Every structure is written in C-alpha cells, then in structure tokens.
C-alpha cells in the first residue's frame, strides 16, 4: 500500500469526531444530562478509524461495552448515538439499548455486546452467513485484551480458524481490564501470540498510529474478502480516560499516563498531516469547526427529541414486521 492510498485526512476527521463526541458526552454526563454510565474510548480512536475505513456499510461489525468510537467509525449517525445515550426514542436503539448497546444494523453494526468476549462467537456466526450468502462481505469483531481470556473468545477463534471464516478479530490492548493490568492476567507478552494456537495469522500493530492500523487492517480484511480465513490483530493502545464514570485511575501512575499522552493518536496524526503537506493549521481548524458543528447538532437533536412512552417497555421483546 502506497502512502498516497491512505486517506489520512478522512481518518483524522473520523478520529476527531470520536474524540469530540466523547468529550462532549463526558461533559453532558457530568452535567447530569446523560443518565447511567459511560465507557469512553478516548485515546484509542486510531484503532476504530483505521479498521472501519476498510469496511462497507454491508460488512458486519460487533462491538463491546465501549462502542461509541466503533459506531461513529462504522457510520452510525452521531445524532442517533447521542439520542440513544440520552435514552430518547429517536436513538439508534429507540432507547432500548443505551451507551453499551449502540448500533445500527442498516450500516452493518449490530447492537454492541456488553458481556465481555460474548461478541466473538456472534461475529464468527455472521461471518459464516457472509461466507455462504455473499461474495466478499466480512465480519469484524472488536474486543479488549481483558476479553481475550474469556472462553467464548477461544471457542470462537478456534471455529473461525477451522472453517476459514471471513472474520477479523481486533484486540484493542489498552493495558487495563477495568483496573487489572495486563501483566496480572497474561503470562505472555502479546495477545496476538495466541493466534498461532488457533491456527490463524496474528499481527501486532501500534494502535496509536493510524497509518499502521490502516495498513494491517487492510491486509486482514482483504484476506477475509478473498475467503482466505480469519486474522487476529492486536492493537497496542491506551485508554487515556478512566474505565467508566467516576474512575479515579488510582491503579496506574500519572507518569505512565503522561508517557502515553505523548503518543495520543490525534495530535500525532495532525503532525503527520502537516509533515506530509496534506494539511495546514487552517485545514485542521476548519475540520475542528465542522466536527464541533456536527456534535452540536447531535446534542441539539438528542435534547429536543422526545423520551419514549413508558409502555414502549413492552415492545420489541419478540420480532415483529411492523417494528
């Protein structure tokens, strides 16, 4: 892949949209506008952007309890995500899902799965359907390194490998499963090393370098489209925020956080864009303003949307053609 083939400006816009969306979510949460809890993706944006840039709306995506970034990168409308976080009837799940279950099947994203690791067999199943029904549709499954120790993940990867399923497993290793550090849960250095045991390629990539993620994901997704089988990608990254609301992050040092902040993927990409002559400060400022306007619009939409009728609780337990 040539440098010129990587859509860096578009990737920047996606990453910045995720970042600004979530910063606003956090602010609205602190203000009490958004109920419940939030699992923010701040710091990991290059992974969602670099992977999803290769996906078509008809490709399948399975996400986690930390799904906002994946949803934005897959093309779920920010308005519909924000309204879902507000619990509004205009949300992408009509208020039935909430933060941990955002998704929109019209753009290939199923409701995010908030049971750690449980999305891995589902992604394999969707890949099985894609393999039978479609020429080159693929399935992508995001999960954290914490999920890599779940039985469901092992079972799914084994099945994906034995049946050569067109699925790409993307492990976002952000070093902490809630508060538990990587080294306490793994005897090995890399999650990707396990790929050999399943019989599929395992690739390690700097998850804070969107160019690298884009290249690696492109190869894995192309391999799946060619029906050559699954890939496990491990993106080494870092959650620059807490695990969920009110996480004081006392299980890790401020020095460590400062080290990772220097590798923040967004300023890093901004610098790269200028270095390559693909953007000036003015270009970046214009993107910033456009992104802010998009978020403003999403918040306005969510604020102005109606809450569901309490009795809507009773709808959608079973499938109905009427919706």
């Amino acid at each position, binding site marked *: 892949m040539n440098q010129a083939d990587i859509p860096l400006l578009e990737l920047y816009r996606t990453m910045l949209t995720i970042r600004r969306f979530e910063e606003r979510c956090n602010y609205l949460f602190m203000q009490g506008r958004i109920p419940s809890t939030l699992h923010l993706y701040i710091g990991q944006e290059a992974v969602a952007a670099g992977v999803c840039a290769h996906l078509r709306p008809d490709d399948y995506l399975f996400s986690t309890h930390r799904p906002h970034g994946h949803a934005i990168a897959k093309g779920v409308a920010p308005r519909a995500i924000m309204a879902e976080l507000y619990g509004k009837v205009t949300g992408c799940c009509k208020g039935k899902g909430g933060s941990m279950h955002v998704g929109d099947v019209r753009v290939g994203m199923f409701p995010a799965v908030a049971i750690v690791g449980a999305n891995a*067999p589902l992604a394999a*199943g969707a890949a099985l359907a894609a393999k039978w029904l479609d020429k080159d549709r693929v399935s992508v499954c995001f999960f954290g390194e914490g999920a890599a120790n779940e039985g469901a993940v092992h079972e799914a990867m084994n099945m994906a490998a034995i049946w050569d399923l067109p699925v790409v497993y993307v492990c976002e290793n952000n070093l902490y499963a809630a508060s538990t550090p990587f080294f306490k849960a793994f005897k090995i250095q890399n999650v990707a090393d396990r790929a050999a045991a399943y019989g599929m390629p395992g690739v390690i990539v700097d998850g804070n370098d969107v160019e690298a993620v884009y290249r690696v994901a492109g190869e894995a997704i192309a391999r799946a489209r060619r029906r050559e089988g699954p890939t496990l990608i491990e993106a080494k990254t870092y959650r620059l925020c807490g695990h969920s609301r009110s996480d004081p992050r006392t299980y890790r040092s401020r020095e460590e956080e400062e080290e990772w902040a220097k590798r923040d993927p967004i300023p890093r990409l901004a610098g790269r864009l200028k270095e390559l002559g693909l953007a000036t400060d003015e270009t970046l400022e214009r993107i910033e303003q456009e992104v802010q306007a998009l978020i403003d619009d999403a918040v306005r939409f969510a604020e102005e949307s109606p809450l569901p009728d309490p009795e809507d609780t009773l709808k959608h337990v079973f499938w109905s053609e009427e919706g």
Partner: protein
Amino acid sequence: MALMTIAEALRQAIREEMRRDPRVFCIGEDIGIPGGFGGAFTVTLGLSEEFGHERILDTPISETGLIGVAIGAAMAGLRPIADVQYGDFLFCAMDQIANQAAKMTYMSGGTVKVPLVLRAPVGATGRGAQHAQSLEAFFTHIPGLKVVAPATAYDAKGLLKSAVRDDNPVIIFEHKLLYGSKGPRAERGALSPVGEVPEEEYLVPIGKGIIRREGKDVTIVGKLLTVYRALEAAEQLAKEGIEAEVIDPRTLVPLDKELILDSVRKTGRLVIVEEDNYTGGWGADVAAMVAAEAFFWLDAPIVRVSAPDTPPPFSPPMEQFYVPSAERVVQAVKSIL
C-alpha cells in the same frame, strides 16, 4: 399417513425445511460425522448424505461457541437449527442464550431478528445428575425466547417446522424417553411413542395447546413425558369413575392460557405434573396463573406433582422415586376430590 417415532418425525421436519429453504442448516456436535451417531439421539442421522457437511455442520465440543455462531448466523440471515447433546449442556452457553439470543431484538429496538432454533434433550434416563435435568423453567423465565415441548411425533414435526419459520429464538425441549431412538442409541425403559404423521405439509402453531383426553372432574396438565404419566393416571382414575381431562400445552412460551383456564373453569380442580424440581418449576407459574385468573372456579387447592428439590440421582430405585409416576398423579388427584 406414516407411522413415525419422534426422532424420525424431527428428522423429517429438518429434511423438509432444509429442502424448502437453503438458508436452513444444522449445527451441533456429532451430528453428521460419517460413521457417527446423527446427534446424541439419532435425529440428524443420514442428513449429511443429502445435504453435505456444510449444512450439517459438525462443531468442536464448544457449546458457547456453536450456539453463539448459530445466533450470529441467524442475525446475518441464515436460519440455524442448533442442538446440544444433552439439555444440561445449555448451561455452558447460558450467556449466549440468555444475554445474546433473547435480548438482541429488544436491545436493537426491534431492528434485528434472531431466527434461531435450539434443540435440547431433557429427562432422567439413568445417567446421573448432569445428563438428566428438566430445564424448561430456566428458559421460560427469559423474555425473548419461545419454548416448545412436543410429546408426540405429529407435534414434534409440526412444531419444529413452525420453529424454523419463526423469526425469534425458539428452544425445543425433547424428552429422551420419547424419541424412539434405535440401534445403539436406543434408550432402556423408553416409552418411544409411535404416531401418525401426515405425508402432506402441515404446521403445528407455536402457542397452541391440546386436550389429550376429555374429562369433567379434574384437569391434569403435563408436558413431555408427564403427558403420558397423566394419561396413564387418567386411565386408572376412569376405572374408579373419575373423569380427568389431560392437557398438553405443547408450547410453554407463549402459553395457551385460555385452554388451561377453560378446562379449570369446567372441572374446578387442577393437578400439574412435570419432571422439573418443585421450587421455581414451570408448574409453579401455571399454578399462579390459574390462581390469579380462575380462583373463583377452583373447588380445591391446586396440586403440583414434580421431582423433589434434589439433583437427579443415578441409582434406578432413586431415579424412579425422583421422576413423577402415574401413581403419584392418581394420589394427587384423589387428594383434592
């Protein structure tokens, strides 16, 4: 009409649905291995010869994985029939069933459908505590799942075909002593009812029960094997001039409440018999429903006949004690007359 066992009727249903719709496939352990068993109880025997090993898909021993794959495939447009060798193994995959299959339509605001069929054998058959449980109540408790429990070959075929065509997850509980499995997979002490099954296409609707025997003195509700225990009991009671009405709900979710309520309004007495444990059993919910909706028609307390609150034991005399017998049903009826 052809005479069939339940295993043969289920096999015929699968064959017809797979011929009708190329999206239908079977996924499970040991279901299509050449020289293998055709599933634990022979239901899929021979199907891989007609449909090949892609559509009769053998899996590793991975209940979470295979049920999760089936759910994901259903979400993406296929219509899987997944099976576990013993219902007890459903616990291995409880997250996939309870948190994924059952909730996906709901969490998506009604935009994702999960047309999954999940087959599971239940019932105590001399195998000890982990291959014997009657698990229906665990699943009738979960909103978003339909649960069926056929007791005859006719119903087994018609309900399985309806389940395949349903756009929701449907769990089919099948009793090991009713299959009529043959050869090395035959069950000792099996009832193996053989029933008439029409040659032509038919469906049994999900959510409709049936009166197996009419009577005016007492209503006995059973399911799976206990339908036959209830019928045996009714036969004995008839000799003493007591006319019992035997109801087989066939579907547990959604339950044909009106059929049961109408019968109780007629007889004024209700005995519920099931092989599950007593506390929190499916029968408890039926009793509560009848108490709430037909209280003033009841002439006596509702009686539940079930297994005791113990794991299924192994040794034959203990297992016989554990599983409700026709005699216990007779005693229960007499206790409220």
